[in-house]
């Protein structure tokens, strides 16, 4: 028996780096910690803006234990499944959904040299490939619930996907051309002098609106439109399955926000204030992430929701041409810069 | 702008005996009582003379005289007058022409009166229950012989 524990310890020591990354940061513990933080932050921040208090009691400091209490409550509820539907799919979807954005998070570089999986230099492509599965599964949750409201929500998920994804990808191509690589680490390194948000300002506008669409945030959050659709695609899910769907939503938000930080806001670039460049890089990534989250929450308070046809019209009539103009300008700039070099 | 005297004259000239009563109780109010058989023609005539916005419609139950007094209330945007058009119908055979084709807005009021008082409006497009629960079978609540107390215990 000692031999086996010995082997285990040697295994962990040899691969400490990878195991730390998978288990603690930016792996499982980080994602769960982020979930608790993000839900708490959203509830508290929105509450203050709405002249309310938000969670106060559970957990003496600003009610952060409320989230754990809510999670426990949700887990211990009954599984209610609609009758005339594929039960296996109904259970499978909330289990699949949080995994995909989590897989997107592992591709992000948090600090110089600190990345969980670099995908052989093609991190961006893998990220986008994974992200296209998410809306399809979302739509399936609406279909499998066998409910008029969720079906309408499922239609809207498709509309949203059509409206938001194509301009998004076009704007990302602009960044790729500027950086010259699909490698996320390479893209961050290319921003060490100037964040891409400045030369790619048009692309950033398109990316931001597409990002709001992919993460289903106001003004593009119509699949879960409480006003007309009770709760949209998630109506029939309750208890633990609902908890999983909510987690999927927030992890998706995390993944896309990190992508925005990496592509446009300079990733882990920033002055070295913690002594160690890796720790500073991680600090800057998280700091910029927090700013992005706050801006999205402020937009949530300040604006109404678009109607589906208005969003699709905006995506195709305005965003795609804008992204194409951005591409053309980027190619021109790159060409001119190359000539001068 | 037509004064009410002119309106009365025109009405009486056209409909004669059908117009039973024409009263101006106070400023801006006009009460016309007509015969039940010609109520629709009088309504069209009144609409052509500027009474265009329907405000209300209903009925009053007079069990002692064995009649229902059905009324419609119309406002005129041109004359700034409120007109109450009344007619009497028989209590045991409660039927009257519906004025939906004259003023669309009375549709729901007539539906409610049908449901609560049991007056049949002929020609109404949709006499379906509106206010009462779906399994209501205890009579017409607004009639005077429907008493509120005996919720039989």
């Amino acid at each position, binding site marked *: 028996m000692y031999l086996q524990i010995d082997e285990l310890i040697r295994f962990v020591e040899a691969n400490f780096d990878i195991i730390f990354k998978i288990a603690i940061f930016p792996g499982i513990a980080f994602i769960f910690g982020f979930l608790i933080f993000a839900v708490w932050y959203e509830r508290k921040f929105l509450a203050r803006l709405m002249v309310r208090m938000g969670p106060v009691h559970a957990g003496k400091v600003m009610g952060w234990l409320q989230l754990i209490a809510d999670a426990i409550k949700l887990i211990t509820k009954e599984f209610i499944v609609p009758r005339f539907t594929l039960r296996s799919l109904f259970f499978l979807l909330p289990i699949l959904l949080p995994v995909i954005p989590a897989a997107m998070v592992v591709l992000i570089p948090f600090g110089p040299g600190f990345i969980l999986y670099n995908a052989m230099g093609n991190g961006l492509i893998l990220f986008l490939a994974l992200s296209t599965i998410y809306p399809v599964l979302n739509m399936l949750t609406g279909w499998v619930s066998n409910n008029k409201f969720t079906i309408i929500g499922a239609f809207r998920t498709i509309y949203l996907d059509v409206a938001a994804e194509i301009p998004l990808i076009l704007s990302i191509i602009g960044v790729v051309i500027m950086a010259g690589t699909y490698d996320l680490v390479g893209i961050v390194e290319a921003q060490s002098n100037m964040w891409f948000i400045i030369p790619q300002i048009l692309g950033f506008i398109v990316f931001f609106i597409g990002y709001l669409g992919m993460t289903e945030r106001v003004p593009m959050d119509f699949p879960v439109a409480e006003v*007309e659709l009770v709760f949209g695609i998630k109506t029939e899910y309750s208890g633990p399955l609902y908890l999983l769907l909510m987690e999927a939503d927030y992890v998706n938000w995390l993944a896309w926000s990190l992508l925005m930080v990496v592509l446009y806001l300079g990733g882990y670039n920033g002055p070295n204030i913690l002594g160690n460049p890796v720790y500073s890089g991680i600090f800057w990534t998280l700091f910029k992430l927090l700013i992005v989250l706050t801006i999205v929450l402020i937009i949530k308070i300040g604006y*109404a*929701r678009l109607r589906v046809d208005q969003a699709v019209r905006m995506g195709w009539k305005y965003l795609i041409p804008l992204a194409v103009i951005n591409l053309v300008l980027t190619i021109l700039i790159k060409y001119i810069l190359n000539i001068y070099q | 702008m037509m004064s009410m005297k002119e309106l009365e004259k025109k009405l009486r000239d056209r409909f004669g005996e059908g117009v039973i009563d024409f009263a101006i*109780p106070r400023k801006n109010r006009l009460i016309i009582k007509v015969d039940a058989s010609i109520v629709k023609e009088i309504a069209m005539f009144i609409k052509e003379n500027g009474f265009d916005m329907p405000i209300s419609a209903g009925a009053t139950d007079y069990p002692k005289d064995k009649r229902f007094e059905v009324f419609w209330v119309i406002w005129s945007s041109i004359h700034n007058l409120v007109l109450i058009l009344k007619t009497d119908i028989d209590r045991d055979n409660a039927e009257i022409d519906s004025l939906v084709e004259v003023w669309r807005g009375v549709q729901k009021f007539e539906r409610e009166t049908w449901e609560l008082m049991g007056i049949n409006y002929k020609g109404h497009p949709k006499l379906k229950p509106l206010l009462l629960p779906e*399994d209501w079978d205890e009579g017409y609540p607004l009639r005077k012989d429907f008493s509120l107390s005996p919720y039989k215990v």
Partner: protein
Amino acid sequence: MGIARVEEVEELKDGLMRVSIGPQHPISGQGRILVVTDGETVYDIEIDIGYSHRGIEKILENRIYIHGIVPLERMVMLDTSPITMCYVRALEELYGVEAPPRAQYIRTIILEMNRIISHTYALGLFAESAAWNPAIFLWTTADREPFLDLLEMLTGARWSYSFIVPGGVRADLPQGFKEAAFEAIKFFRERLDVYVDSWIDNYLFEVRTRNVGVIPRDKAIEWGAAGPSLRASGVEYDTRKHDPYAAYEELDFKIITDTSGDSYARGGVRVKEMYVSLDIIEQALENIPDGPIKRSLPQRAPPGEAYARVETARGEIGMYVVSDGKDKPYRVKISPASFRNIFLIEMLPKIEELRFADVPVIFYSLDPWFLDADR
């Protein structure tokens, strides 16, 4: 009791479904909106009311006049005083008397404060239906507090005042009321400016509500719309001007209309009406005459009939009171404003193309109050 009647529902074409934004829904209130749709386009809307029908007309036939004021307040909880004012007005017409001038001014103050309270709540709901977050709704609900406190200072209750009685009002203005009222008005004016800035002039809000649910002028008259929904379609009609009561004849204010008739116009008319209400309260407080506040009336009303109208926040309410000489009314017929407004949405799919997401927006722009419609 008995078996439920089976509703005859017509068969729908393939691909259409009948969605019931029903009584159990985050935004529907106590009523049902049945929408026939294929997912995005709306083909037919039907409103189902009656979930909170209490039979107030029948109850009033069994109460003496002064006692009848209390169940009437429960008809609509937001602005209760215009409804009691309508009943009292009909009674005073039957008796043939007028309340003393000081009472008329106090009535005006209460009515206008009620209008502000109701409009802020309705506008908050409207913003929420245009798919806002509850932010605006919570702000407006919080900002009503100064007026609710003022009314509590005056009448002792926050929403069911039972204050306007046949013959006058029940009590006089307390000391310190005028100063507190002026402060509240100043505070509210600033808040209204904030709302107009951040929300009425908001691009996304306009995108959701402009040209949505346009009710043309002739249709509004033909279908009997009332209140801001009528005025937003270009019809200049306000009971306070066309059939004055309380102290409105002596006060100076204008009727707010708008010509576009869409949901944005209906919301805009309400906001401007709130500015006008603040002016009216200020004028009334400054010009209030001295004198008695109530005259006593005999318990039995003379026989006759009377039709009285009062402008509530939602529109005009009409009451037809028939008296046969006793101390209880023989028949009271109430035509509430919401009963006329709610059904306007049923005619819209026939005249314009609606989307499913527009249905709550239009519905809440009409300021529906199911309790009002049901009585």
